[in-house]
């Protein structure tokens, strides 16, 4: 899991109360028939951000992107770009360009003509068009293939042409619909970093739609997690991972152990929780006092758990279990433990040394433990 925090805190405009948002999405709702594709979504994006809309299929992320491009009209709500209300502006007048998921390159035009398409439409002088096209070809490293047609290009090359075409008009806002979706895994990882580099160089605000949480985490300054037409949480990749707002986000981003239970004791800055299906109780950090009996869920990432042969008496929280599944992934191993009362706990162990003894085997009885600050307490 890449959790790149790419910018220093000073460059996080969303922290600054005086910063003016570049794009304002205000109470956007879009229905298709009786279904709410986008349901009262509001969100601010700042100049120069690489902002991701992340969610499963049908969560409304693509519809929201198409609304930003002007290809769909919202039922209600407003879109402001750089202070201008563009809600009812047709796509051909918006200072916005889009890179389509299937690239939508014009098959009857060469790479060059595709990139020049929008510039010619704006009646830019010929010499200037040629100059800009050259710069774009340079940016995406496609100089040699400028005379090719799209059907003579590989998937990765088409992706570059699509990016160059959408950047050629120097839009204020670039929308990318699953920009890496059609590439294979190796190329996708490579292109992720390239896309970040290009974005930093041109300085354009990028909004990308993706269903791939790893992709969103790697590239974005901030990620908006969407579910059923709503934005569930907006935050930096690191904060989304470590401080998920609710169970959906915790489960959608990375893998997580969810332990449900009730508050049985109020301590100083901590609460004691009796978990369903576990013999012992757990202590978790929580600043605000919670009434006794409140039902909560404890979310702990598999890599936050440590494994012991003996019961770890000095640790506040522990669980006993039997190893039932082992997955060796090279850098880490994933163990599935079965507790005496039939719960499954997922543990991740990093292989730090080459000559390590095999950690644990099937059927081994082990203990896992964590501190009260290692997990997140989720309400409701």
């Amino acid at each position, binding site marked *: 899991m890449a959790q790149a925090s790419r910018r220093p805190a000073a460059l996080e405009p969303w922290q600054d109360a005086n910063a003016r948002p570049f794009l304002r999405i205000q109470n956007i709702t879009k229905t298709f028939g009786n279904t709410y594709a986008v349901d009262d979504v509001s969100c601010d994006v700042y100049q120069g951000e690489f902002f991701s809309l992340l969610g499963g299929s049908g969560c409304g992320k693509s519809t929201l992107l198409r609304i930003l*491009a*002007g*290809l769909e009209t919202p039922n209600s709500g407003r879109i402001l770009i750089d202070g201008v209300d563009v809600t009812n502006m*047709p796509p051909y007048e918006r200072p916005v360009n889009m890179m389509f998921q299937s690239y*939508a390159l014009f098959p009857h035009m060469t790479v060059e003509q595709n990139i020049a398409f929008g510039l010619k*439409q704006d009646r830019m002088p010929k010499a200037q068009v040629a100059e800009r096209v050259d710069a774009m070809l340079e940016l995406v490293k496609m100089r040699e293939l400028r005379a090719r*047609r799209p*059907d003579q290009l590989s998937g990765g090359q088409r992706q570059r042409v699509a990016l160059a075409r959408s950047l050629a*008009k120097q839009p204020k806002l670039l929308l990318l619909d699953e920009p890496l979706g059609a590439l294979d895994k190796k190329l996708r990882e490579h292109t992720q970093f390239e896309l970040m580099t290009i974005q930093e160089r041109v300085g354009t605000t990028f909004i990308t739609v993706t269903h791939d949480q790893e992709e969103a985490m790697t590239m974005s300054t901030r990620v908006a997690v969407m579910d059923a037409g709503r934005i569930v949480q907006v935050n930096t990749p690191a904060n989304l991972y470590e401080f998920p707002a609710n169970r959906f986000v915790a489960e959608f981003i990375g893998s997580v152990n969810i332990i449900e239970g009730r508050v049985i004791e109020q301590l100083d800055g901590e609460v004691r929780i009796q978990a369903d299906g576990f013999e012992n109780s757990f202590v978790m950090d929580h600043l605000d006092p919670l009434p006794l009996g409140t039902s909560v869920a404890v979310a702990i990432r598999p890599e936050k758990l440590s494994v012991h042969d003996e019961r770890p008496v000095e640790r506040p929280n522990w669980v006993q279990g039997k190893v039932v599944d082992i997955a060796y992934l090279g850098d880490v191993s994933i163990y599935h433990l079965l507790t005496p009362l039939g719960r499954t706990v997922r543990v991740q162990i990093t292989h730090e040394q080459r000559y390590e003894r095999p950690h644990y085997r099937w059927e081994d009885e082990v203990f896992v433990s964590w501190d009260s600050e290692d997990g997140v307490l989720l309400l409701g």
Partner: protein
Amino acid sequence: MQPFSWAQLWFDVFRRMFAWLGSWRREIHHQRGRAIVVGLPLFWLGLFFLAPLLILLKISFAEASYEQPPFTSLLSWGEDQIFSLRFNLANYATLIADCSDPATSLYCYAYVNSLKTAAISTLLALLVGYPIAYGIARSSPKWRLPLLLLVVLPFWTSSLLRTYAWIGILKGNGLLNNTLMALGLIQEPLEILHTDIAVYIGIVYAYLPFMVLPLVANLVKLDPLLLEAAADLGCRPIAAFFRVTLPLSMPGVIAGSMLVFIPAVGEFVIPELLGGPDSLMIGRVLWSEFFTNTDWPLASAIAVALLMLIVVPTLIFEYVQSRNSPEVRR
């Protein structure tokens, strides 16, 4: 390197020839099914297209005669023991001589008039047919088939009957004039019947499906995302049409235009029934040479020349098609 020898050379040549023949035989043997599939239509075309065409070509080099059949044989076995093969080029010479004097020319005028009429009709059919095809292609798949059926529906009536129906509509006291006069839009009946306009109407009406069908087949393949991409890059709908839709539908435009143009050049019934004395088209000239003058050789020469006139644009079309299709280029 071996010294050169003629024997070696001939040996090599024969060996390669037989090797090639052998591989060809094996090919035939292995692909018998394929040979049948390709052979049947070839046989059909040979029997009913190529053979008549060769007969036509033969007659065009003969001389007219009053015997039965009304042309001379190319081969003759004379009394003086001379086997002779006579090619009479007079028919083609007549055509060329006719064309060299535009003022009095009959055949050339008919040719040019045919091409002009066919070209204008094709253009009109394109202008009428493109919006229809676009509408059908953009309609929901549920509606597409019924709409296409409506386009083809008139074909289920005799074309002769439909052409006669146009006489009823276009004539001086016909449906069109009566309606326009009843509405007070015109005071005197319009003279449409027996003019070029009537011929254009007739041809466009008769051949419209040939224009619409290939265009629909092409336009349904157009990815609507491309139009969204064009809009995103700053194109108003009109600009997107001319920069994306139209260029991408060119194969359909060319196919439809050829399907209308080629039969329209040789059209006989429509100019005969709807046209006036000026609307002399090559089909009518052919008809009168065959049946009124009974000059089969000259008529055949005209037909061969007409064929050439049509084959050349078809070959150009084929060339453009093969250049545009990506399968060939790869």
